């Protein structure tokens, strides 16, 4: 009898250790991963949050075609069909030279402006380790509207504006990503001597994922105290991203008419409370020109 009990106990012990062994083997395997930890993917759906850029760059060999459109203000009344009769448009192309470096060009109908930019992803958020993604952004814009200042002799440099921006973002959870963007906009020519050539601002924004393919986004640019901050308004935009495979549709309401930094940061006159709200959208489409 004792023998049988002992044997039964032994048998149970063997069964238990046997079934545990495999779990242990799998656990062992999971700890034996190669040292490279995974980087965070999909901090934002698109290369734009709403008006401003996000930390996202195109992958190597990917060409992104971006159509951005803003209608007139909501408060323009029935005669203007609440802004839908008017349109401001920017067409842009962005190409990923490497996974980190993107070069882009664009043309805005507002003041017939061409712009070119470089975007470089310096740091990439990691699952373990690096807590943020840091992308550096710089752009040059050329206003090609017929010469506009009767009192100033025309010089090419007067048409140029530069933007320098550091985009810092963190994907907090799989739904929430936040971004902060210290920005400098330098204008070579400003209308009045009291106006600032250098305008400093801090952008802040984020996204909340509603479903796998739709997000709610908000973006705000705070102008640092100075003449520009006194005369103009901070940019506030709210919108949604809808991703459908190769396209991202971004629908938004914003108090900014322009779609490049020199317009929506230092020269923003619209007020949300007065109904100077522009309805707008960005549509992006990605073409893979060169496969990895």
């Amino acid at each position, binding site marked *: 009898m004792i023998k049988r009990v002992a044997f039964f106990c032994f048998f149970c012990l063997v069964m238990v250790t046997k079934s545990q062994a495999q779990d242990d*083997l*799998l656990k062992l395997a999971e700890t034996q991963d190669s040292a490279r930890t995974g980087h965070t993917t999909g901090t934002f759906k698109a290369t734009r949050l709403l008006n401003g850029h996000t930390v996202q760059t195109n*992958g190597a060999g990917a060409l992104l075609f971006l159509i951005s459109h803003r209608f007139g203000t909501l408060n323009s009344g029935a005669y203007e069909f609440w802004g839908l009769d008017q349109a401001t448009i920017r067409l842009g192309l962005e190409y990923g030279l490497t996974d980190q470096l993107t070069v882009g060009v664009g043309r805005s109908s507002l003041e017939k402006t061409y712009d070119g930019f470089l975007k470089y992803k310096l740091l990439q958020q990691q699952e373990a380790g690096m807590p943020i993604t840091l992308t550096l952004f710089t752009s040059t814009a050329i206003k090609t509207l017929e010469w506009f200042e009767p009192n100033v002799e025309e010089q090419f440099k007067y048409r140029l504006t530069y933007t320098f921006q550091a985009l810092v973002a963190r994907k907090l959870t799989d739904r929430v990503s936040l971004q902060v963007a210290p920005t400098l906009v330098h204008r070579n020519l400003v209308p009045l001597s009291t106006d600032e050539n250098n305008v400093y601002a801090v952008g802040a924004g984020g996204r909340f994922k509603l479903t796998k393919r739709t997000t709610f986004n908000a973006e705000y640019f705070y102008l640092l105290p100075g003449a520009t901050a006194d005369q103009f308004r901070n940019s506030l935009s709210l919108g949604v991203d809808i991703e459908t495979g190769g396209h991202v549709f971004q629908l938004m309401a914003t108090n900014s008419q322009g779609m490049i930094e020199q317009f929506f940061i230092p020269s923003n006159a619209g007020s949300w409370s007065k109904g100077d709200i522009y309805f707008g959208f960005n549509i992006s489409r990605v073409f893979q020109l060169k496969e990895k």
Partner: protein
Amino acid sequence: MKKRGRMLLLAGALALLGPPGVQAQGKYMTRTGYISFFSKAPLEDIEAHNRQVVSILDTKTGELVFSVPMKAFQFKKALMQEHFNENYVESDKYPKATFKGKILNLQEIDFGQDRLYNLQLEGVLTIHGVERLLKTNATLDVKGRQLQGRANFSVTPQEFNIEIPALVREHIAKRIDISVQMLYAPFQEKPLRP
């Protein structure tokens, strides 16, 4: 009494096998195993490669496990890779796919004899947090102290609750062919990271 004595001896021997140093005997491992998948769809073929698969094979028990880091799958198109991780397998939530199973015909394999063996495998495949029973054939090429394992099988996104929206259903094939190639070497535990 004699029997019980023997039993005790056996129990003692088993207890001795317990310590981790001894446990490693008979185990083979790779940290750079290769898994690729391919799906043919009307619009475009989808293909991805992963060379960071960890797998351990216990030649004594026939147990076989795989740990597959999902973010290590490399696609030719950056956007496809992002959508794979963000929309389909949800790599943030389910960072690894695993397989734990065993060789059913272990007695037919002599790990001391260099030859190509046919294996029958059975076990649980976990992708996207969903467990499914997988039964497949594989081959094992024994070459001295190296073992080369190969297997091919198919899965469907549906059986792992991977939802494909109507809008892109035409772009993604119903069936996904998976190919596995592992080159095992005798197990050596990775030194602990500081």
